[in-house]
């Protein structure tokens, strides 16, 4: 039994491996990009808009408001990163309703990659906001003694992000797989529905935590 889609390899040449995780990610990327393009291609700027546009606007305004609620005053600057995190994880998790689909978020490599992105984004936005020195000073807050702890927290929370998402999604898939062998009919459907909920919650948690970290970096340095 394969625990991760990483293990399904389509093509390998030395270090380069094209596995199910990467392929699924590409498909999702294509889906998101094409859907966005199709919908925003005919954007209407008047009062009357299409239903698809309305749906997208609701999603984006909700994300924007969430970012603002957490404390980032200019959500337009961060929506590209945080919004994409949320949309990618949410779509990846929602697609479990399709048969034989294995979410890329169930692969530790993907979650680690996303965690690394957050890990890199925090100093990026911090430095962008208040310069390198300003950002680095935030590690000495409230006193320089706190520097090691700050560093540890920075690394540990990144690992926690990666493992939390991976564990939740992977376990959901595992439970369904195991239940299928025991009670193959109705029960897996219930678990799958639960999996959808878990997936949405995880997408929300991941992006909110990323926002909190970025907000903390931006506000501390500011």
């Amino acid at each position, binding site marked *: 039994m394969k625990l991760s889609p990483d293990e399904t390899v389509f093509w390998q040449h030395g270090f380069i491996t094209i596995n199910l995780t990467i392929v699924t990610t590409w498909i999702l990327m294509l889906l998101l990009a094409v859907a966005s393009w199709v919908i925003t291609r005919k954007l209407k700027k008047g*009062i009357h808009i299409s239903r698809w546009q309305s749906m997208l606007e609701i999603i984006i305004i909700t994300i924007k408001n969430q970012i603002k609620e957490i404390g980032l005053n200019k959500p337009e600057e961060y929506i590209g990163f945080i919004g994409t995190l949320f949309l990618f994880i949410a779509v990846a998790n929602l697609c479990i309703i399709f048969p034989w689909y294995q979410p890329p978020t169930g692969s530790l490599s993907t979650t680690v990659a996303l965690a690394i992105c957050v890990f890199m984004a925090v100093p990026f936005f911090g430095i962008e906001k208040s310069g390198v020195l300003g950002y680095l000073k935030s590690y000495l807050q409230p006193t320089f003694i706190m520097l090691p702890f700050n560093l540890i927290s920075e690394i540990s929370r990144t690992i926690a992000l990666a493992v939390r998402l991976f564990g939740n999604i992977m376990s959901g898939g595992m439970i369904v797989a195991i239940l299928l062998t025991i009670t193959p009919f109705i029960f897996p459907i219930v678990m799958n529905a639960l999996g959808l909920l878990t997936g949405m919650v995880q997408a929300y948690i991941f992006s909110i935590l990323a926002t909190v970290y970025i907000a903390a970096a931006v506000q501390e340095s500011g």
Partner: protein
Amino acid sequence: MKINWFTVIAQVINFLILVWLLKRFLYKPILNAIDEREKKIISQLKDAEAKEEKAEKEKVEFKQKNDTFDLEKKELMDKTIAETNVQRQKLLDEARTEANKLSSKLEETSKENRKKLNQEIAKKTQQEVFAIARKTLADLASVSLEEQSVNIFVKRIEELTEEEKKKFIEAFKATSKPILIQSTFELPHKQQIEIKKSIQEILGAKTHFEFKTAPELISGIELMANGYKLAWSISEYLDSMEKDISEILKEKSKEKTEKKPETKTKHDVKEDTDEKIEPKKKVVFEKKAESEKK
């Protein structure tokens, strides 16, 4: 639970590409659309607000104008009503004056008519009275009356003043024609002698006489000698009487036009006519009496 580091790197790159793609195709256009729409809505709201403000202002203005208009209307109405009343009063007054004028004119005309009629009646009456008197006297001028009248004539000749006598004598002396004596009836011989006698007494000489009858004298007798005339007849009396009466009438009417009474009831007019008629009668009778006396 292995971490495939190539996959990790690939996923990081994939994720960054996705961020770029979504930024390019999703967030930017949507956010722009939202911003633009918001701007549009705000501008529309502002427009609406401005319009509302304008409308409110206009409403107030219109209300004010309406109020002013109403007030003006009312004023004009009141003025018109007042003017109409004044005009009405004026017209009524005019009509009344006109009516008064007309009625007074009518009254005057009727009065005039009445006066004319009265005058006509008076004249007629007068004429009638004289005609009757004349006829009566003519009828009554019997011989005894003629005699009486000759007696009176003779008496008159005898009573002539010295001056008159002198004039008579002078007139007589200046002509050789006989003395003409006219009368309405043929004088009887006796009377002719009486007259001759009395004249001869005055003249103191014998002279010729010519006796003629003249019916127009109306019970009268006339003596003519070279322009000198000595006469007595009822006709003369009647002529002078008629003259007197018409003079009185003229005076009366003159007085009436001067006084011009404003309004007179029928009663008054009646009395008036009575007044007018009565003196005539009086005069006639007085003259009659006088003539009888004589």
